[in-house]
């Protein structure tokens, strides 16, 4: 069984937002609904300035708060590491939304808190999901963490990586290249 991970090199991101809309169309989301987003921060004083752009989406945590707080197991952790949602079991209590420290969830028109799915239909075939595939700068690389030859493991071996909010104990499956 594969165990999926995602490494994001945000230093390469130039904020084109293709990842957002590629995901929206693949998942048939309305314009207002997104499964991923960019966090943007400007720092410094003119002309010595810097801009950070960090793509974010569901971290598919190994210790996912949204999984443990779900009263009906509508949100659950798959064996391959993906945090998935069974929409038909969801009661719409939004507990997962308050429990997630990454703001990964959004409520859809059916009042189900939805989020990035990691598109297993691609991962299972060894392909990159739309957010990664469309990215002109190859910011995202998905892959099997259990496969020693995977590209993601190569990147993880060659770079120092960090996960977001490690103090929350969520053990995210997304790793950010530290630059």
């Amino acid at each position, binding site marked *: 069984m594969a165990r999926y991970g995602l490494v994001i090199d945000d*230093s*390469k*991101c*130039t*904020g*084109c*937002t*293709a990842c*957002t*809309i*590629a995901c*929206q*169309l*693949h998942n*048939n*989301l*309305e*314009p*207002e609904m*997104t499964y991923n*987003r*960019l966090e*943007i921060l*400007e720092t*410094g*004083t*003119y*002309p010595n*300035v810097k*801009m950070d*752009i960090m793509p974010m989406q569901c971290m598919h945590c190994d210790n996912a708060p949204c999984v443990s707080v779900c009263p009906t197991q509508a949100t659950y952790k798959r064996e391959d590491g993906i945090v998935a949602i*069974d*929409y*038909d079991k969801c009661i719409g209590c939004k507990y997962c939304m308050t429990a997630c420290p990454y703001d990964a969830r959004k409520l*859809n*028109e*059916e009042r*189900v808190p939805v989020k990035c799915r990691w598109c297993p239909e691609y991962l299972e075939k060894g392909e990159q999901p*739309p957010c990664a*595939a*469309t*990215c*002109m*700068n*190859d910011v995202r690389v998905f892959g099997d963490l259990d496969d020693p030859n995977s590209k993601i493991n190569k990147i993880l071996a060659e770079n120092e990586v960090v996960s977001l909010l490690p103090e929350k104990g969520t053990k995210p499956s997304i790793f950010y290249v530290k630059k």
Partner: protein
Amino acid sequence: MRQFNRRTFLKASAAAAVVSSVPLYVSFNNYKKAAEDATVHKIPSFCQGCTSYCGIIAHVKNDRLWKIEGHPIHLKSRGHLCARGHGMADYAYSKDRIQHPWKRGDNGEFEKISWDQAFKEIGEKLKDIVKKYSGNSVVWMEHGSHRKPYVDRLFDKIGSPNFVTQYSTCFNSKTNAWQQMVGGTLSGDHQKSKYIIFEGRNFAGGIVPNGMNLITKAKEQGTKILVIDPRYSEIAKIADEWLPIRPGTDLAFRLAMANVLISEGLYDKVFVKKYVDGFDEFWKYNKHNTPEWAEEITGISAQKIREIAREFAKNAPQAFIEPGWHGLHAHYLNSTQTAQMAIILNALVGNFYQRGGLMPSATVTLGHLELPEVFGPEKGDRVDGAGVDGEFKTVEPARGISHLIANKVAEGKVKAVFVCNNNPLRTSPSPEEQKQLKDADLVVSINIDWNETSYHAAHYILPEHYYLERYEHPYTVSGHITHEHPQIALRQPVIKPLHDSKNIIDILDGIAKGMGYNDLYPFTVEDDIKAAIAPLGITFEQLKKAGTIEFPATLKTGFPINKGKPALKTKSGKIQFSAELFKLDGKIGVPTWIAPKVMPDSSKADEFRLIHGKQPWHSHAMTNNNNYLMAMSERYDGMSMWMNTARANKLGIKNGDTVTMESSIAKKEVKVKVTELIHPDCVWVPSTYGGYSPKNTTAYNVGVNFNDFIPVMVEPWSGSTMSQEVVVKIRKGAM
């Protein structure tokens, strides 16, 4: 706001799958299941999100476009696509599309008409106009020149020289300089370069996805990237250094760089001697343009300019200054000279036809459909004056001066206007002047949506098939990036036409027949495609299946030589530092310093130069009615105008405030983003917003457009709009 349009295409099948759902909604699981069960057809074509024309693979389910992916072979995309590509694919389903022919009635209201009526009336009116005023009073305005071979048949018949592209609002200054000095345009070889200067060129905003991929790869391999731009643009984010330059002074920076290269003997003397003509003349006029001189003008220190010139020379020929796109090339009085200087700087370090420097695009020659020749009256001078003695002699006639046409209507020189895949009322300066188009005797808009030109100026609106619904003559893939293999790409229908629209040949044929010319178009696009690919040894079926076909590499390094002599398509066969054509009326052909036409008064706290640029998820105003892309603008505060923090503080303006901005021709309100990422002398607006057609509902009344503030001006050498030669006054608060 509930919008279920993406869902509707699966509703029928989903409803069938859902028997016992909760009544209020179709359960998402069942919906998805139905969606997944549908067969997906993958059809290659290419994009129209901008003019990069990336290859796409369209995924179609239940006859509805589901999504697109980047074509893996097409060298502009290589599997990647930017946001606008995805957005404009979905735009096929916009409710603001033109769904059938419309005619503006006497009361000004539009009424639905049939194609037959449209063709008959337009044909008759055009015939009368040609009879009364000659074909010279007829103008075809198009974004580019893709339909030109088809339009030419009608225009040859009626005797009109007036095929006008929108390039005077885009990049005329660049192509004119390159044509005169090099005989064509080269592109940067980003991946193999060691040092790249992006000056006034935001490659991460005006995107070629595979180009950006090559640039980020180059950066990972250690290529140094320098960005010179008044605004910290998206490409600056991955640059090693961002140098904010005083807007309008890039020419001074480039002249000073050349000065360093020459005076310090850093330039490639062998290359210059062999392949450059006019070096001495250039040096004669520019000896005095030292870095110290440029520091005063540009705000970039002399030391920095020296440093850059030396590093540029050191890395050459694996170094280049980006030839650029729109940025700088329709912006200032000195835009043509600025473009000339890009050629001169690159030539001085000898990077022409060198890997890591500038390279041509590999290309193939297409075949032609043999058609009966068309005979018509002799054509007069172009009405926009492009290439005409005594008017705009130095402007390329093939591109024209788009933003003058409305004024030519007002002068009574233009009587009939066809506007196709173009929206001059929004993309040309001074909307009120552009609205004069409507006063022509006949105005036909051939566009896909209710853009400003359709709504405010058209007498007739004829819907052309959307790019996903039609065939087009195959394209040879080229531009902006270097590639060794020639490619051709096909645009083909991926969905059935959603509305009562037509292919351009059928529209032209209908109009011709309305005039009584029954056999001007005895062919279809498919015939044209087959003829075009005939010499290539591929079949139409192969091309349809592949979408993009790559041919064996043809690209060679080294300067083009013919019979031992330099063989560029210029007068001398060399790179001409002095452009012959520009030596008109005693003027010189080499660039030297020309100050911008206007400058904000630095002693006045409220004066700024208004500049603009392309947002990475919008193609100027072309995408502003797309609800996905506009939602993105909403999400990232995309509609705001950028203003430097220190300047804003002086005016008491805070982030998110509304200000009133006034130029000589307009006064408007705009929301401000206060930021450290912009030169204090200017304010920046994205080129996207300011929609003013009430029937383009998403774009309507959102933000402002730079064109609102600039009068109609013509850059003397290349005919461009000089769109950043405008000073605005800004004060806090609403109007």
